């Protein structure tokens, strides 16, 4: 409901995101930093990645991430470094570890379940004619035909 309206009231200010002085001179490293920072949460914002956020904490995290990459960390090491300091709350994409596998499995499991129920229903439909409802009175049938005839 009024979806973004309220999100933005709480969000406060529009995003300026990455500033020119943060950009690394090596385009490959910079691209890795951009990709990784899209998956890291700005801790003081509402549902925003540090790549999009203009909060100063997000800027600090962007710079920290770039420092780790320049220091030679792999993507996984750089992210692990930040998660060690800020907790898994910082990950916008929760890894399927521990209880979180439930979250990841929920969709496929539900599809199997719903698909199974649907299949059983379809087989039932195809085989038995199904119990007839209480038959309509002549009057009702006439009315129904009248409504449905066009």
């Amino acid at each position: 409901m009024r979806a973004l309206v309220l999100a933005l009231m709480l969000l406060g200010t529009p995003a300026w995101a990455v500033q020119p002085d943060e950009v690394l001179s090596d385009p490959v490293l910079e691209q890795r930093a951009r990709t990784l920072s899209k998956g890291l949460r700005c801790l003081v914002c509402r549902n925003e990645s540090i790549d999009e956020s203009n909060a100063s904490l997000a800027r600090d995290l962007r710079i920290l991430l770039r420092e780790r990459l320049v220091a030679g960390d792999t993507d996984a090491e750089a992210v692990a470094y930040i998660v060690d300091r800020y907790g898994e709350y910082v990950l916008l994409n929760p890894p399927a570890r521990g209880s979180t596998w439930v979250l990841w499995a929920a969709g496929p499991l539900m599809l199997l379940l719903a698909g199974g129920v649907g299949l059983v229903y379809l087989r039932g439909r195809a085989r038995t004619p199904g119990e007839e409802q209480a038959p309509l009175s002549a009057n009702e049938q006439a009315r129904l035909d009248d409504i449905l005839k066009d």
Partner: protein
Amino acid sequence: MARHRAPPYGRRMITELGHFALILAFGVAIVQMVVPLVGAHKRWPGWMAVAEPAAGAQFALTLLAFGALMWAFVSSDFSLRLVVLNSHSMKPLLYKISGTWGNHEGSMLLWVLIVALFGAMAAWFGGNLPPTLRARVLSVQAAIGVAFFAFILFTSNPFLRLATPPFDGQDLNPLLQDPGLAFHPPFLYLGYVGLSMTFSFAVAALIEGRIDAAWGRWVRPWTLAAWIFLTIGIALGSWWAYYELGWGGFWFWDPVENASFMPWLLAAALLHSAVVVEKRESLKSWTILLAILAFGFSLIGTFIVRSGLLTSVHAFANDPERGVFILMIMAFFMGGALVLFAARARALEAKGVFSMVSRESALLVNNVLLAVACFVVFIGTMWPLLAEMFFDRKLSVGPPFFNAAFTPFMVMLGLILPIGSAMPWKRAIITRALKPLRYVFVLAIAIGALAYAIQSGRSLLGPLGLFLGAWIVMGTIVDLWGRTGRGENRLRRLGRMPRADWGKMVAHAGLGVTMAGVAGLTAWSMDDIRAVPLGGSYDVGRYTVQLDDVKRSQGPNYVSTTGSVTLLHDGAEIAQLRPEKRFYPVAQMPTTEAAIDYNLLRDVYVVIGDEQAGGGWVVRTYIKPLTNWIWIGCALMALGGLLSLSDRRYRVAAGAAKTKQVPAQ
């Protein structure tokens, strides 16, 4: 010197009249809830007949209350607390009007106004409904109204006064001062609340204990209307986010967005299952369950947004009264409806028999995919809360999760859509249904492969989106063409196809266009961030951006910094852009007004940032391919819905005169 803007006596009277009308509407709704329900049970025509005038009166009174509140905003009556908190005398008129619903209390008043509007429309157009069903539908609708009138009057009264009115108001959040956003909430509300009508029909049918093809036909226009409004509302919000937020994002998987997306998914599922009820008298209990759940998700959406629960667990404690009240409303309506469903669903045995391969089965698959997709969005939205409550883990579920977990279901839906819609009812022969589609499939694959070959990156998403888009659009056109039969005069027959068939084609094509747009934008957008000296220019892709000048100026209630940018393509000027940033002193807030060069194939999106210490300005440039396809697709979906809605089969009221003589059962 004027002491303050105390409005004259007459104007304040209007506000009091509005408050009084609201209380009266609450009373009328209670009568409308109780009397027709008892009347339908006892078969007392006089009592049942109360519903119709009561629905009209309830709507008129609520409209009066809403009009009075709007008048208070337009005339800047700062003796009202709500106006002080959300308006300012200098604000442009349009935003004074939209400010009426740009806050909690006013938006809830809009919500009940629309509940009452739908109730009144059901009373006016429901001449063809059996009297008991009509009485029960209006009674359930009134019950929803009663709950929300009570919510407004007891926890969120918009008509509260201040003893000493201040000179001026605190202004509306500047981000909301935008034409796109002025109309976003009303459309979304029309959609949410439209689903209350299908809910009322479902509950009334459960009370009646019977559902037939006619029920399917009565309930479909309401679902269709709600879905059209939701589509427009969501698209407006997304479009607004795209041009206003300054980095061209169009969807963020934010809890409040998800809150509007879940009912949309279920309403889409409901539209399709109601077709099966109407044509084949099957899937009845599932359709009823969907109707209940779809409105349930509207209530959950209201709860999520109004309680602030998902912003953080702590925000909930700031205003527990409202949150708990909505939770109680939700528990009452969902609990009651589901108990009724459990008790009565067995009575709704299906009639139609169909084979495993048939239109019915295809629509069932559509429903499974849409419902599971909705479930994924739901669990992703609620997971941070659940994880904290049960596993003591504080974690985030953001866009990367939703993109990965939700997209496969949409891909599957897109793949089966043309096949399913080409199948006949009852029993289909799969090879015959596939035959006309084979060229379309090959062509769509070729388009996807071509996109894969010429793209610069290594994305699979972009080509997949284009393939799906082409497959759906061409498949649905071939399907409609195939329905014209053989031989001469096919074009003329095409023109005479029922509007519902055209609507189906246009809406499905819209879905394909939107899918292609989303995939293209996500996969192939480019951005560039740099500090540019005045007069400097730089290249982004095949475009050259040149910053000519930056000027400061004064707007009605803001200060503006505007850049003059020339956009060149292969050396030739194609556009003059004016990216702007504004500062609203009353609210102490900055906003960005991006300058966008719109084009069917790509948008060039330029944003001006801060002045740099070393001279020059920060300029962001984004090349966003296929963006407009997203909104064009949404517009097509809404148009398709409208075409279907205008089909003569749904003008049930038109048949009312002929069937008046049929006595009450």
